[in-house]
């Protein structure tokens, strides 16, 4: 039975933003008195994550993903609520806690720009007080997994974006953290590199039983890596569970692709479901999930059906619909 290592209850994070009135008089006014209003970046979320889980946060920009991640890593104080990561209160930023996790942000580097990545690793060795044997062992392992043996001595600014990301990951994992927070790790990378990074993360998660939380707005990241997905929008959790359950929860309909043997009467077809397309001999029907088997059976009974396909809606489409507010029930 794995332990719960991340425990979040009723987390709220509000930011005070000052709104400047437009124009010159607004500027002058802002010199003397400022009006603030609250931005609810995270608005009452509760999550429990167990050791070894690989969890993905998805949501549109501004949803609260990064804010949540920053709060979990101690970069932000919660406005209210309870957080515990590895038994620590993250915002206290205790060194014992900091030694056990790592944060990687897609567009920000921790590597020294004009030195080889190796130098940053040595620096981290010092910062995290990693014993030399352990350091060498971990380094070799990571370098092999990520296939960067030849790049260790190359200055970071000469590396490609993808190679840099690999080095960032090594720098982040050199101290064998128990928890890894990744904020948009594959952003800007080409498709091949994205795949490589995903494979690496999956492998690392399995071999080290490291808990990995990642945020992304690439569906592929989440599909490939995460069994568990948390959907966030406007600071609220819309869904928390297995990826395939999203479909069940949010996809209220399935699509039936039918090929008929002969001409049929579309009016009769309408009784079974919503006709999305009708080009004889093909037809596409939208049917409520709960009724799919019933409708399928009826179709086969009432119509001369040559071919029948039951199609799941695309996860991307569902998520998109969710964010567009169309499927919130």
């Amino acid at each position, binding site marked *: 039975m794995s332990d719960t290592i991340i425990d979040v209850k009723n987390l709220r994070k509000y930011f005070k933003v000052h709104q400047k009135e437009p*124009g*010159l008089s607004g*500027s*002058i006014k*802002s*010199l003397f008195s400022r009006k603030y209003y609250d931005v609810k970046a995270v608005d009452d979320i509760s999550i429990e994550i167990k050791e070894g889980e690989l969890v993905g946060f998805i949501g549109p920009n501004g949803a609260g993903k990064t804010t949540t991640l920053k709060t979990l890593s101690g970069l932000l104080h919660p406005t209210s609520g309870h957080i515990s990561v590895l038994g620590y209160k993250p915002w206290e930023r205790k060194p014992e806690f900091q030694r056990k996790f790592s944060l990687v942000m897609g567009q920000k580097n921790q590597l020294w720009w004009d030195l080889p990545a190796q130098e940053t690793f040595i620096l981290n060795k010092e910062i995290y007080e990693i014993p030399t044997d352990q350091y060498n062992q971990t380094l070799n392992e990571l370098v092999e997994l990520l296939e960067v043996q030849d790049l260790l001595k190359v200055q970071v600014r000469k590396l490609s974006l993808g190679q840099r990301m690999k080095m960032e990951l090594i720098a982040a994992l050199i101290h064998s953290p128990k928890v890894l927070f990744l904020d948009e790790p594959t952003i800007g990378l080409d498709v091949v590199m994205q795949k490589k990074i995903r494979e690496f993360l999956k492998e690392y998660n399995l071999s080290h039983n490291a808990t990995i939380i990642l945020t992304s707005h690439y569906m592929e990241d989440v599909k490939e890596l995460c069994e568990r997905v948390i959907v966030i929008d406007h600071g609220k959790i819309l869904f928390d569970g297995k990826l395939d359950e999203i479909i069940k929860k949010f996809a209220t309909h399935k699509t039936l692709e039918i090929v008929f043997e002969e001409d049929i009467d579309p009016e009769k077809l309408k009784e079974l479901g919503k006709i999305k397309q009708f080009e004889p001999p093909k037809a596409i029907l939208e049917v409520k999930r709960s009724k799919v088997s019933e409708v399928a059976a009826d179709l086969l009974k009432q119509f001369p059906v040559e071919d029948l396909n039951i199609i799941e809606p695309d996860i991307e489409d569902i998520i998109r619909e969710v964010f567009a507010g169309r499927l919130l029930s």
Partner: protein
Amino acid sequence: MFPHFLKRKLKIYAAYLKTDFQAQFEYRLDFFLYTIAALVSPIIGLAVWLAASNSGAKLLLDKDQLITYFALVLFVGTLNQTWHAWYVDEDINTGNFSKFLLKPFYLADEYFIREITDKIFKLFFTSVLFIAAIFIFHISFKGVYLDLITLTLFLVSLVLSFGIAFYLESIIGITTFWLHSIDFLKDLESIANQVLTGRLIPLVFFPAGLASFISFTPFRYVVSFPIEILMHKATGSTLLFGFTLQFFWFIAMILAYKYLYNKGVVKFQAYG
């Protein structure tokens, strides 16, 4: 044709001015620190020369005059303080400069607008400090002449001095086209600003030969000359000579700037 062109330019200026004014509010802290920086010279200058005077030095300006002089340096020197060479440097090095090639807007114009808004703020600030200083130090302004002619001459000279300072700074900025870093030039400028403009040492204290030499450089005309006019230390032929040189340097700076600018643009377009 001509008035229309001017009108359009003025309209653009006005719009730019307004936006920049607002942007300036965002930089309140920056502005505050830079202005404090400008105050240091006159304060130190006054302290040093007063101390010298108190320790028995015989100077060409008595104590009251020293106080008056440095109070005026505080005003004029702060007003004419420029630092936009760094921004020009940044714009060129980051390639931001291209926007000037695309828009019908001249590089100097953009920085000029910023300077104007900057001056307005500075004027406000230095006026407050000036008035405070008057009351704290009981400045009698002995030796300052406020008749119409002197004031007019002073204002004309002030505007010219601003032009010289501005274009000198702009020239330093655009040398970025050829030099890797303008640090060295800025350092030289800073030294010249301290020693040759009268900010730390009243130019009249220099031995005749050196003072003459400085009269031929643009530096006297950035701070010292307008003050000399106001204190009636430049009269008759000296006044004429001074104004001639100030005009000369004003024009020379603008011409040098335009020449270098055009050369620089060509280079920029070649290499990007």
